C-alpha cells in the first residue's frame, strides 16, 4: 500500500474514533451524579416550576440519546453551543484559552527535547560512567515526581524564597517576553517527565546503534568519534525518538491540567476541570473532542514520520 493511500485510510478511520470518544465522554458526564441544575441552584430555595424550566432550558428533560444527537447536529455545523454555568459561548471559551495551552505545551516540549536527547546521547556514549548513572537516577526521579508537587516546590524556591520570578502570570500577551520568561517554571514542571522519557529512549536507541557493524566500519575508516556519533549513529537512533515525541505532543496538552492550576495559567486544562466539576457538558465535550483529535493526529503523524524517515518501512 502506498503511503498516500495509508494516510487516507488512517484519516478516514479517525472519524469513527472521534465519534466513539464523543459518545463515551457524553455518557460518562451523564453518568456522573449531580446535574447542572443542582450546580446552578446550589443551596437555594427553588420552586418545582423553576427547577423544571431550568431542566428544559438545558434540554435535561429529554432522553440522553436525544440530547446527544442534538449536540452532534450542532457540532456538525461547527456550533459548540453555550456554556451552561456562564454566559459565554463554548467556542469563545476555548479560543481564549487554546493559545495559552499551545504555548505552554510547545515550550515544555522544546525543553524536554533539548534536555532529554543530548543527555541520552552522552549517557549512551559514556555507558557506565557517572554521567550515565546520574542521568538514570534523575530520569527516574523525573518520571516519578508528581508535577503539581514539583510545581509548588519551584514556586516556593524561585518565586518566594529567592523572589526571582513572579508567582502568577504577568499581565501581557502570551508571546510577550515576560510571559515567556514566566513560562520557564511551568514548562520545566510540565516537561520534566517527557525529558526523562526522551533521555531513556535516546540512551537505549543510541546504545543499540553503537553495536551495529556500520559503526565499527566508520571507526575503521578513521572517522573521528564526533562524526561517527553525530552523523551516523544519531540519525539512525532518532527514528524511534521522533515517533515517540510526536505522540508526546498530545500528552503535553492534557498534562497541562494540573500545571495550569498551580501556576494560574489560563489554559484549556483549567477550563476542562472546572467544566467537569460544574457538569458543564458542552464544554467537556468540546475540549475532550479537541484533545482526542490532537492525539489521533499526533499518532497519525508519528506513523507517517516513521515511514518517511525509514524508507524500508512499508504499510
Amino acid at each position: 500500500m502506498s503511503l498516500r493511500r495509508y494516510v487516507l485510510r488512517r484519516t478516514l478511520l479517525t472519524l469513527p474514533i472521534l465519534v466513539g470518544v464523543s459518545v463515551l465522554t457524553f455518557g460518562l458526564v451523564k453518568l456522573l451524579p449531580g446535574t447542572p441544575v443542582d450546580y446552578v441552584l446550589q443551596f437555594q430555595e427553588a420552586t418545582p416550576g423553576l427547577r423544571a424550566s431550568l431542566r428544559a432550558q438545558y434540554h435535561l428533560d429529554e432522553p440522553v440519546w436525544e440530547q446527544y444527537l442534538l449536540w452532534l447536529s450542532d457540532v456538525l455545523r461547527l456550533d459548540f453551543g453555550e456554556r451552561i454555568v456562564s454566559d459565554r459561548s463554548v467556542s469563545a471559551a476555548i479560543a481564549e484559552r487554546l493559545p495559552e495551552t499551545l504555548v505552554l505545551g510547545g515550550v515544555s516540549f522544546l525543553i524536554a527535547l533539548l534536555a532529554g536527547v543530548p543527555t541520552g546521547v552522552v549517557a549512551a556514549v559514556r555507558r557506565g560512567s557517572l554521567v550515565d548513572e546520574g542521568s538514570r537516577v534523575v530520569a527516574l526521579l523525573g518520571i516519578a515526581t508528581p508535577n503539581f508537587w514539583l510545581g509548588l516546590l519551584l514556586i516556593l524556591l524561585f518565586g518566594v524564597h529567592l523572589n526571582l520570578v513572579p508567582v502568577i502570570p504577568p499581565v501581557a500577551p502570551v508571546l510577550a517576553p515576560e510571559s515567556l520568561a514566566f513560562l520557564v517554571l511551568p514548562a520545566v514542571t510540565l516537561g520534566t517527565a517527557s525529558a526523562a522519557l526522551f533521555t531513556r529512549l535516546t540512551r537505549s536507541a543510541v546504545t543499540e546503534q553503537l553495536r551495529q557493524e556500520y559503526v565499527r566500519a566508520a571507526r575503521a575508516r578513521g572517522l573521528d568519534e564526533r562524526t561517527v556519533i553525530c552523523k551516523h549513529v544519531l540519525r539512525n537512533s532518532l527514528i524511534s525518538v521522533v515517533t515517540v515525541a510526536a505522540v508526546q505532543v498530545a500528552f503535553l496538552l492534557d498534562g497541562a491540567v494540573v500545571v495550569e492550576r498551580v501556576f494560574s495559567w489560563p489554559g484549556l486544562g483549567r477550563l476542562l476541570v472546572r467544566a467537569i466539576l460544574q457538569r458543564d457538558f458542552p464544554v467537556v465535550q468540546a475540549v475532550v473532542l479537541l484533545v482526542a483529535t490532537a492525539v489521533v493526529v499526533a499518532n497519525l503523524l508519528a506513523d507517517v514520520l516513521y515511514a518517511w524517515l525509514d524508507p524500508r518501512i512499508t504499510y
Partner: protein
Amino acid sequence: MPPVTTSRRRLLRWVGATGAVGLAGCAGGDGGSELVATLGADVSTHDPTQANDTTSRKTFDLVYEPLVGVDFEGDVHPVLATSLDQRDDRTWRVSLREGVTFHDGSDFTAADVKATFDRYAGTPRESDVFLWYDGATIRDDHTLDVTLSQPYAPFRSTLGGIPIVPEAAATDALDLAAGPVGTGPYAFDTHEPDRLYRLVRADDHWYDGDDVPAEPPIETITFRIIVEQSSQVAALQGGDIDLANNPPADAVADLRDDDSITVSEHLAGGFEMLVFPLASRPFSNRDVREGVSRLIPREAIIDSVYGGIGQPAYAPISPLLDDYTTESFLAEMGDEHMRYDPDRAAELLDAGFAALDISPPYETTIVTNETGDRVRWAQLVRDELNATDFFDVSIEQFEWSTYIGRILSGDAHRSDAMMALGWSGGWDPDTYLRNVFHSEQATPSCCNAGHYANDEVDRLLDEALATYEVAERRSLYERAQRRIVADAPVGFVRFGTRIEAYRTDVVEGFRTYPLDSGEFTSIYAPTMGAYTTTGGR
C-alpha cells in the same frame, strides 16, 4: 489629583500590553494607584439574576449598588435609597437618591428599581426577590411603593443583596453578559477569562460627603484569578498580589509570622454542621442524635483543624447577630444538649440503641466534599464515634457537584449516611434557620437535607418572619432554637471566621466583612465610612 482621562488609561494599557510595564503590581503611575487582589475562581457572569457563585457576587459589590447597604456591624445604611418608610405591614415607600447615573450614562430612576426586581422572575436567583416581592408602583421618578407578598421582617437587610441594574437590562437594549453596568464607585474594565478581572474608578460617583474621600483613592482594582490556594499564599508572600482572601487555616500561622503581612479576621455568618438522616435508623432516635452530637470534639476541632480560629457552635444563629443570640444562650444550649461529653453520650447511645433494638456496632458513613478543613473535622468526629462500641464509621469524600447532588437530591434523609455540611447565613436570623429546619424546605425544595419536621418550629419561624418588632422576634427565634437544639436534627460544630491577609506596606484601611461575597466592601463604601488606600505605593 488630576482626573485620569480615558486616553491615558488606554495608552498605559497599550504600553503594558507591549511588555514594557506589564508586570503585575507595577502599573501604578503618577496619578493613580492599583490594588491587586485575587478571586478563587473565574467570574462566570456579570448578571445578578444568574450568579450562583460567590466569586461573581464578590465583584458586584463595587460595580453595582443596592438600595441600602449593611455595614460591618449589621446596621443598615442608605445607598441608592434615601429612606425606606413602612406604610403598612406589606407596603414600603422607597425614596431614591437623585442625580445618580449608571456607568452607561443613563439616569437612575424608580423604573430601574422596579425593572431590577421584576427581572428576577424565572431566573436561577428568583428566590432572592420573589420570596417577598409582590410588585412595585412607581409614584414619581424618585419614589416607588414596594408591595410585599406577606409581611417580611428581613426586608431591609435583604435589599442589601439586590444590586440595582438599569431598566434597559430587562430588554434586549442592554446585555449584562457583555459587562456589568451599575452605579457603583467602580466600573467594569476588562475580563480575561481565568487570568484577571479589572475594575477602574467610575468617573462621577454620586457621593459628595466628607466622611471619606469624595472619590475612591484606589484607581484600579485588578483581581488575579488564582485557583490553587497554596499559589495564592505564595503570590502574597512573593509580592505579586496585595490582598488574599480566605487563606487556608494551615497557612494562616505562617502568614502571621511574616512581618510584611497583616492578617485580618472577623467572626463570620455561618456554621459547620453534621446533618442526620432522620428517616433512617438509628438516627430516627433523638437520644442517638444527641449522643452523636455530644461526641463532636468541637474544641479539639477548632484547635487542630482551624488553628484556634472560630468558636464552637451549639445553636444555629451566629453570635454575629447580637440582637438575636448571646454567648450565655449558646453556652446553655451546649450544656443541655450538645457539649462534648463522652460519658453522657454513652448513656444516650445505650438508651437509643436499646429502644430501637439495634445491636451495635452500627456501620455508617459521613459524607463530605473535598474541602480540606471539612474532611479533617469529619475525620475527628469519625475517630470519636469509632472509639465507642456503638459505631463503625467511615468517611466518603465526593467532588462538589456529586456531593450537592447527593445531599440535595431529596432522598438523603433515607440513606444511612450522616452529612458534613457548611451553611452560610446573612444579616437576618431567618437565614440561619428557615432553609435548613423548616419542613417546607425539605430537599429538593431547598436545604433541609435530613427532612426535619416540627410543627412548632415551622410555626415559630413563620411567625418570626412576619414580625417586625425586634424583641418579639428575638423571643420567637429563641424558642425555635431551643426546640431545634433539643430535637438535635443536626450536630452543630463551629461558627466560622472570615480571614484576609494583605501586604502591610501597601494596603491601608482594609477591613474584613463578615459575610461571603462582601469581601471587597471596605475598598470604598462611603455611606459606611469605609475606604482603602494603597498608601505604601
